[in-house]
């Protein structure tokens, strides 16, 4: 187990380094000079070129790419992701101040995916071959293929503008998270539904289920107590993997629902060409993704011993 843990840990670290190189070089490959741009927002009589050069030097943008990267990594390891040009405060502080809003949304989305996905999956499996099954499968297909930002707009149109049940924007109260989390969670719910269904079908064929039925156990008990317990493992791991995706999806969802969080900060940072902040947030989201994968791997190994030795 320890061996496996270390192996997975190393590969996670390698992926993280890869991501840091990618995000760093991506920001550098973008055409244009961030300092020039910063000053260009003012009127014609801006600062003289020497001033711009001085600023560039202060920010370290005049150094070769490799040195800039090494400095960045060294600082990052120390927990310093640099200072945001626009907000004039440490990137880590900005991330820390906003991460809970995004987490909130991602977790709410995850809950929706879990509840919706599991119940629909069980329903489809239980009613296999009937119209209920087909309908559920069609609905889940819609769910996972529909762009969630489009769904978000439709939800706002129906539930905010027409029916007036939920607010269209903002955060803070419980009813403000309903629409965004639903929009965000539906894609994952579609995936989970299909996974739960196939996993359930497999388990329902097992002999112990037949035995249970033969003993005269009620069908609902068979489904929940005997079948679901075993069938839920693959969907659960999938749910873990979905968490990273949901964090990323929160970026767009936050924009559409005008919510606070890492997503809006990231959009702001891109708009204001705040390179350090963009890098920091991308790295952070990637790290969450890698971490949730890692945890899932660990859990899986813990639940299913065969994996450890594979």
């Amino acid at each position, binding site marked *: 187990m320890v061996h496996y843990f270390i192996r997975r840990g190393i590969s996670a670290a390698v992926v993280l380094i890869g991501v840091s190189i990618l995000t760093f070089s991506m920001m550098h490959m*973008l055409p244009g000079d961030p300092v020039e*741009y910063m000053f260009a*927002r003012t009127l*014609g009589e801006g600062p003289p070129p020497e001033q711009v050069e001085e600023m560039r030097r202060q920010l370290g943008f005049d150094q070769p790419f490799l040195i800039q990267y090494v400095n960045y990594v060294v600082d990052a390891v120390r927990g310093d992701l640099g200072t945001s040009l626009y907000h004039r405060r440490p990137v880590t502080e900005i991330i820390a101040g906003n991460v809970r809003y995004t987490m909130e949304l991602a977790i709410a989305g995850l809950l929706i995916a879990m509840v919706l996905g599991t119940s629909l999956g069980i329903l489809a499996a239980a009613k296999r071959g009937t119209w209920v099954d087909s309908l559920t499968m069609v609905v889940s297909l819609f769910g996972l293929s529909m762009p969630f930002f489009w769904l978000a707009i439709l939800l706002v149109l129906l539930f905010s503008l027409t029916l007036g049940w939920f*607010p269209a924007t*903002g955060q803070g109260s419980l009813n403000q998270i309903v629409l965004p989390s639903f929009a965000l969670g539906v894609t994952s719910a579609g995936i989970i539904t299909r996974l739960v269904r196939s996993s359930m079908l497999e388990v329902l064929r097992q002999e112990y289920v037949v035995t249970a039925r033969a003993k005269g156990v009620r069908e609902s008990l068979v489904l929940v107590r005997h079948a679901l317990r075993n069938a839920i493992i693959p969907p659960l791991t999938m749910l873990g993997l979905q968490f990273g995706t949901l964090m990323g999806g929160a970026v767009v969802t936050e*924009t559409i629902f005008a919510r606070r969080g890492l997503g*809006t900060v990231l959009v702001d940072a891109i708009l204001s060409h705040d390179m350090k902040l963009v890098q920091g947030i991308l790295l952070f989201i990637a790290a969450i993704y890698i971490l949730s994968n890692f945890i899932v791997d660990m859990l899986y190994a813990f639940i299913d011993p065969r994996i450890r030795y594979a």
Partner: protein
Amino acid sequence: MERLTNADSLMSERYSRRQLLRRAAVLGVSMPVVGSLLLACGDDDDVTEPDTDPVDEPDDDDDGTPEPDDDDDEPEDDDTADAPEGERYGGVLRYGTLGNVDFGSLDMTTTTGTFDLEIGRALNDAYVHMIEGEEFVPGLAESWEISDDALEYTFKLREDIVFHDGTQLDAEAAKYNFDRMTNRETNPGGISYSYLGAGATYGGCDVIDDYTFRLTMTEPNAIFMFRMRRRYVAPQSPTAIEEHGEEYFRNPVGVGPFKLLRWEEDSEVVLEAFEDYNWGPPEIFENTGRPYLDQVVHRIFRDLSTKATALEAGELDLAARLLPEDIIRLQDDPDIEVVIRDQTGQATFLSCNIDRYPTSEVEVREAIAWAIDREALTESIFFGLEVPAYHVFTPDMWSYDASLEDLFGFDPDRSIQVLEDAGWEVGNDGIREREGERLELLYILDELTLPVGQFIQAQLLDVGIGVQLETLAGAGLLEAQLAGQHHITGGMGGWIQEDPDVLRNWIHSSLIGVRQNYTLVNDPELDQLLEDGLKFVGDIRSPEREALYQQAQAMILEPYYVVPLYYRHSFEAHWPYVNVDSIGYDPYGTYHDWNDVWIDESRR
């Protein structure tokens, strides 16, 4: 005949495009989707151009939209005033603010971003104010004197003005601020630095007595008084600056009608009425004392269509800077009132790079100017909400020379004739050629103006000019433009300024490669004219100075360095219970003054 067919197909395309956009707008689809993608691509245009929007001066106001008649600078004269004075107090205004990114700094004297001014206007007050007719009236300064050589400006402050922290505004405090603004150490990138002419014409600030200070110039600066009315140079509390140091931009303390209650980064800024405020200019506001509103919440929306949705859902009372497609939809909503304002200043125009072949030839530029149907362009892309422009200035700009409008128009036959006379013959694929060289142009633009670019591309093709569109964003766009990689590109149109000196910002040769001179025009005679205008001594609205700028306009427009396209407007909407007639506006900006605004609770 061939051209006619093209025009026909264009018309039908236009129709269907419009239909499509309308439908999309109704669904609310187009912008949230496109918008969020655009946002991610870097909406350069919007970050750089906030000075743009509106004002009013309904000269060319023929857009046929139901407009609340008067959104004037001086709201007092037409205030509806159907509620007794006392009942107007109270309430919170939820406002969808102009900017689509978080505020950069709430300290106007060191800010580098222009959207910050939204907050800056409420937190601060100006030394002098300007009313229509370009007349200056007292603000924080009760009187002022300009020396005959235009090198000394002496201001006498009112003696009853206090900052939000209770400290007194006196000459020492003013000097503290001017010294801070004109020092690169304390003000590295602030707009105020160049506004005051620091590093160029600014000499220094001296305290004369407790409430009198004098600003000295090293050279005359005709537009200096215009700068003194801006909130960018408004006084900040020296005590608070010393106390907060580096963090002052988050904790600004001014003398304006509102003070900062809280700034939730990336989300909203909440302002609260300043109880002691008592120095509003009576020439501009009916209410010169404490504002009627208790609070103004400035909410930030990245996606402009979401802002419209929030208004419709009743989560905002007033939303500024909406998209034309949303405005079209909101106009049909009986509950919501739409406000469309003309802008004063400049048109949106194309800059032609005269340093790059073939736009180096005046015939090619003239052909471009006459090939674009601006009526069709504004109708199909902006639903007729923007207005065609045939001059770089709006007609109400001082020194406007209307005779130059005749240089522009829509006449493809004229374009074709000009090109043929210059030896450009139609080639096999419809694109003109001359001695083996094809008449093809590179048009560099940002994502937001892409529909405009595509429209122009189609129209130029009709006269045999090929256009390749290249979209870039943010810093990349700027770099390409500064390097002159384009043949044509979007100019710095839409900048509002109160004086034709604004031309200097995009045509003076000293700006080539460093600032926004995308025409790459390098004409010493033109430079000289603009410098003479800037350093003019005497009445800055005199016929002598006007002649300088009329000559400059002709020197820019006659060789077709730029091609005017359309005049932009600002689009706003609000619920009827917001007393919109009482919103004051900066005569040359889109920013609101809340002094007279009140909420009619009985109509809510």
